[in-house]
């Protein structure tokens, strides 16, 4: 019997529940259904933590084996010779390539994704937005190896024009200087990654923009805002944290993308100052291309590089959460 819903004017005297009874009620575990559900949800939560811990322990253990034998500096060496005795390897080239290709991908994909999402939710007529959203979903369903093949067979041969143009006008900056090698470079990888992460960012962003309360948009409209001003005053601020979350999902995919990068890039173990010159590598691509032939010692070294990728991903996610939390009181959540 629930006391709080008593509505009669003079409620009959009800025995007060004892403190322990109240506690049990508050925890909601007195009924079998509640108990089962509590067990299931708590179990799932614990399972997740166990899996995360297992991965972390595995990575750290195998990585520590490799790093203790490493004769080079694990963080700064530009070399990956795990068959030497003692082995010499370092992740500098991989970290650079992974971060640079992901930055390029984000810089290209996020603005386009936000624009597509705005178009679909606020500009396109309904009979157009449905099919376009469907096509965006289809893009997300294409396997990454297919993107890789398309990148190697179609994108790479068509990059020469863009590379020449960039070299001609922006070659002086250094990062767009082109020696004329095959365009299997970081920029091509970045462009391909941008295409691959576009759908996930677009989809999440679109959902967020769709949930902007009508009343916030009408508030701007009633003040005499144009459509773009409504977007700027209501939609973008409200969707800000959602756009950041969406970008992080995309970034996670870009950081860890393996097959597409391995198919397009011509890897070398050095850092190219120019984004247009072929060479460099990423963590995932390096693991994929070396794992098959690696010795036990080589595998441990690759796992060590995987651990670094894991840490980078954690750091990026933490940074994103911090950005979202910093302006929490201004988010739409408490409106």
């Amino acid at each position: 019997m629930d006391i709080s819903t008593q509505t009669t004017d003079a409620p009959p005297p009800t025995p007060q529940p004892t403190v322990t009874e109240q506690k049990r009620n508050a925890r909601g575990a007195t009924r079998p259904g509640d108990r089962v559900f509590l067990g299931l949800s708590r179990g799932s939560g614990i399972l997740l933590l166990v899996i995360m811990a297992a991965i972390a322990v595995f990575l750290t253990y195998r990585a520590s084996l490799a790093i203790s034998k490493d004769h080079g500096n694990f963080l700064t060496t530009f070399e990956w010779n795990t068959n030497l005795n003692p082995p010499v390897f370092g992740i500098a080239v991989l970290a650079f390539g992974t971060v640079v290709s992901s930055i390029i991908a984000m810089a290209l994909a996020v603005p386009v994704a936000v624009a597509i999402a705005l178009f679909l939710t606020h500009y396109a007529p309904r009979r157009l937005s449905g099919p376009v959203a469907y096509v965006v979903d289809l893009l997300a369903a294409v396997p990454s190896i297919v993107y890789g093949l398309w990148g190697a067979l179609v994108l790479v041969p068509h990059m020469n024009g863009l590379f020449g143009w960039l070299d001609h006008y922006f070659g002086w900056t250094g990062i767009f200087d082109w020696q004329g090698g095959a365009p299997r470079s970081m920029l091509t990888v970045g462009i391909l990654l941008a295409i691959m992460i576009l759908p996930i960012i677009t989809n999440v962003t679109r959902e967020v923009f769709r949930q902007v309360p009508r009343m916030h948009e009408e508030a701007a409209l009633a003040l005499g805002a144009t459509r773009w001003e409504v977007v700027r005053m209501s939609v973008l601020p409200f969707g800000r944290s959602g756009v950041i979350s969406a970008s992080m999902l995309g970034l996670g995919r870009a950081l860890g993308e393996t097959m597409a990068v391995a198919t397009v890039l011509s890897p070398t173990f050095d850092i190219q100052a120019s984004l247009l010159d072929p060479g460099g590598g990423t963590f995932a691509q390096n693991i994929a291309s070396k794992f098959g032939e690696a010795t036990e010692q080589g595998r441990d070294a690759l796992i060590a590089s995987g651990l670094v990728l894991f840490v980078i991903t954690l750091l990026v996610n933490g940074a994103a959460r911090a950005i979202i939390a910093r302006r929490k009181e201004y988010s739409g959540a408490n409106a």
Partner: protein
Amino acid sequence: MAKRIDVSGLTAYYGSHKAIEDISMTVEPRSVTAFIGPSGCGKSTFLRTLNRMHEVTPGGRVEGKVLLDDEDLYGSGVDPVSVRREVGMVFQRPNPFPTMSIYDNVAAGLRLNGNYKKSELSDIVEKSLKGANLWNEVKDRLNKPGSGLSGGQQQRLCIARAIAVEPKVLLMDEPCSALDPISTLAIEDLIGELKERFTIVIVTHNMQQAARVSDRTAFFNLAAVGQPGRLIEIDDTERIFSNPSVQATEDYISGRFG
């Protein structure tokens, strides 16, 4: 300066559904006009035709004339955006911009309209908040988010935001229906002060409120569900509540329907 509204033969649709039909009325400047009537009779729809907000709803369209002094709001070549800058609106649920501070909320409309110096902006923000009887409560926390205020304060913030751009007309769509009685009283007092400067039209479900705040009252009704809403009569508030000329009005305000 406040302006007169002159509506003639106005009909509004949602797609193929006719929501209100053939409404004509005049609203005098510097007066409060209340719209009453049962739910679904189209009074909110009609209110939204007065600042061209109706057409924002998908499928919404309007036939007829709305004159603001001599300018036809639905004339060809009239930009709905500029109409809304002249006819302000306050909504049923308080809707301050959640991502903006109290100050920025009030300044939002001004920033849309053009360039103000920082000092000018501060003056107008202060004046508007004073005009909305909110200044004393928020002057120490202008940089805090508007969504941290109570519901009644948020609604007065929305009023401050609306009057900051000096509209000619202020439309209020059930502005107190989400508020407690004390906040409601504060808004009603405010309406009494604002009518010195603006033409005010208010939709309300609360007939005592209509009787308390308005000079004129318009009663809307619909023949049956699915039929378009119509204006039954508009008259001085005193007369509507004491001796209305149409039987349906008397039935409605005395609680006898149909």
